[in-house]
């Protein structure tokens, strides 16, 4: 099949249309509801959708990483450092002390994000080389180990990274709607790119490797090469999401390498549906919503009043409670619905469609 044929087939496929519809809704939502809190949730969802999709992309090639926070962090640190130095240099060149937010600053941000992604992919290539021969838990351990080592190194070379205390990122795109649109654009491009790769010949090789690696090798697939390709692409997009994350939360420090950040994309993907396109997005919506809702001041206050007496040791019940809920949901999904929420939602959709059709067929 030529590329053109493949593309037309893709554009006509159902899930692609669904994806477009999801993005259209996401783009229109903030226009309808211009609430700050809502916009924060949406932006975080778009950023984490990229991150979770990048993890899912790697898992599609049979490699489960437990250290993706490493790439989130590298992308974040690189984008923040590069962005601020370019911005300062440009401002000096223009003869002012600070760069005003405009077309130029947006371009600088996009550039710094891409460079952050590239650096992350470069390091991803090196780590991928170390990981190519490893399987299941061994791979999980080694990737996890790299993220721990990264946190240590970033503390050791604090002069460059300023990782211990962290530093505020330069505001190059106005927070709120402009930033959301930037993040959404990146999400659309990134997720579609990964989707297209999954559906291409390379993606078929990933699938074969995931299914049975020795067999894939036997039919002539260079498994090491394809696993490396998966690693590099995945880490590139993880790096980009890291850059967006650093710019969005306006601060980057060592805590970005925390195991929690490594587990998040995994949990999102598993809850949403491992190996599906919309799975990671569903998971991101789910997880970000739970965490942000339980962090709302009003919710925190009411939790303190209602649950506080039971847990006198804890000042803020919301955060541990949200993680506890996420843990329980993860267990329930892995045990009772191992394919995640995606097929369940599909079933629900089919059911609703059928119900509507039945109603049309015999109007009362």
């Amino acid at each position, binding site marked *: 099949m030529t590329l053109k044929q493949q593309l037309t087939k893709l554009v006509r496929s159902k899930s692609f249309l669904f994806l477009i519809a999801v993005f259209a809704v996401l783009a229109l939502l903030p226009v309808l509801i211009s609430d700050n809190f809502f916009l924060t949730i949406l932006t975080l969802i778009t950023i984490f959708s990229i991150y979770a999709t990048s993890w899912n992309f790697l898992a599609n090639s049979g490699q489960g990483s437990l250290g993706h926070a490493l790439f989130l962090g590298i992308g974040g640190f690189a984008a923040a450092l590069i962005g601020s130095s370019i911005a300062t240099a440009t401002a000096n060149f223009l003869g002012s002390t600070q760069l005003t937010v405009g077309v130029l600053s947006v371009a600088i941000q996009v550039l710094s994000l891409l460079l952050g992604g590239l650096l992350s992919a470069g390091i991803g290539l090196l780590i991928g080389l170390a990981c190519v021969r490893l399987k299941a838990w061994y791979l999980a351990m080694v990737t996890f*180990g790299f993220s721990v080592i990264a946190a240590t190194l970033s503390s050791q070379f604090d002069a460059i990274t300023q990782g211990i205390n962290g530093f505020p990122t330069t505001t190059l795109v106005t927070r709120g709607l402009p930033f959301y649109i930037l993040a959404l654009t990146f999400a659309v491009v990134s997720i579609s790119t990964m989707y297209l790769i999954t559906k291409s010949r390379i993606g078929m090789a990933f699938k074969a490797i995931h299914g049975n690696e020795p067999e894939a090798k036997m039919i002539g697939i260079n498994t090491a090469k394809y696993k490396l390709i998966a690693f590099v692409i995945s880490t590139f997009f993880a790096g980009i999401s890291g850059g967006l994350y650093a710019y969005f939360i306006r601060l980057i420090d060592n805590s970005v390498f925390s195991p929690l950040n490594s587990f998040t994309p995994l949990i999102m993907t598993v809850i949403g549906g491992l190996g599906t396109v919309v799975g990671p997005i569903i998971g991101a919506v789910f997880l970000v919503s739970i965490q942000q809702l339980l962090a709302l001041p009003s919710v925190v206050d009411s939790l303190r009043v209602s649950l506080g007496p039971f847990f006198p040791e804890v000042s803020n019940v919301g955060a541990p409670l949200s993680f506890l809920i996420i*843990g329980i949901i993860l267990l329930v999904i892995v045990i009772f619905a191992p394919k995640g929420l995606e097929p369940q939602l599909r079933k629900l959709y089919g059911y609703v469609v059928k119900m509507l059709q039945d109603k049309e067929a015999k109007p009362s």
Partner: protein
Amino acid sequence: MEITAPAVILTLVWGVAIGCVYILLATGLNLIFGVMKLVNFAHGQLLMISAFLTWTISVASGMNAYLAIIISMIVVAILGVGVERLTFRRVLGTDKLNEIFVSLGLIYIFENAAMLIWGPHSKQIVSPFSGMSFALPGISLSYDRVVAVLVVVATLAAFGLLIKKTKIGLAMRATSQRNTTAMLMGINVEKIYMITFAIGAALAAVAGGLYGIIFSFDYQVGAMPTIIAFAIIIMGGLGSIKGAIVGGLLYGIAEQLATLFLGGIWGSAVAFALLIVVLVIRPNGIFGEKGE
């Protein structure tokens, strides 16, 4: 700390003490892996729960901390049985990734439940020997560390007897060799799985109690020891208790030496660097067989 001969000796002793905790954890993980072919990444969270339980029991009843460990051991073993029956048994034999996912879910649940119950601040168990130490020239060696080493030796000896000399141990060894054949020999494999998990959890519980007496701990304390225990298993060889003992001591000492010479933040990084180097050279571990 200044690097002097007594400091190095003290570091070695600390390394042995923390190494003993790793050995217990690694032995439990190793047992569960050997018999069930399952990796429980949430094993260290059982250690954490046990440390808190021991703390609560000794504070609430004023009981000797070392006796409190025994009660905590029983409670955690029962908890282990519950975990095995409700979660791991349901994903056993499916995709290997599912075990990682279940473990992660358990880590989230245990850590945050512990944080809700016991709070975010670190605690330390007060033992009857607190503050007492042998005064040797240049160094002072606390009683608790010596007792911890003795407790670990006794526990491992009891464990060895259980595996080598009892009928249950025989059934466990048979199951670890080939579970279908064991089933044909009339062994109730599911029951053996349950007992295995309970013993593994009990070993983690002893490790937790000792850890809580020697070091201060909080709800996040379980993660690192699990990973180090896993590293020890990989390096020491799957199913080998001797390997776990040697590996545990080496790891404990290496970690403490790294802390002494390079600074506190390097402890776990060095542990991981060792693991990564070993795995990159030998993807199935030093003594691992080819394939699985």
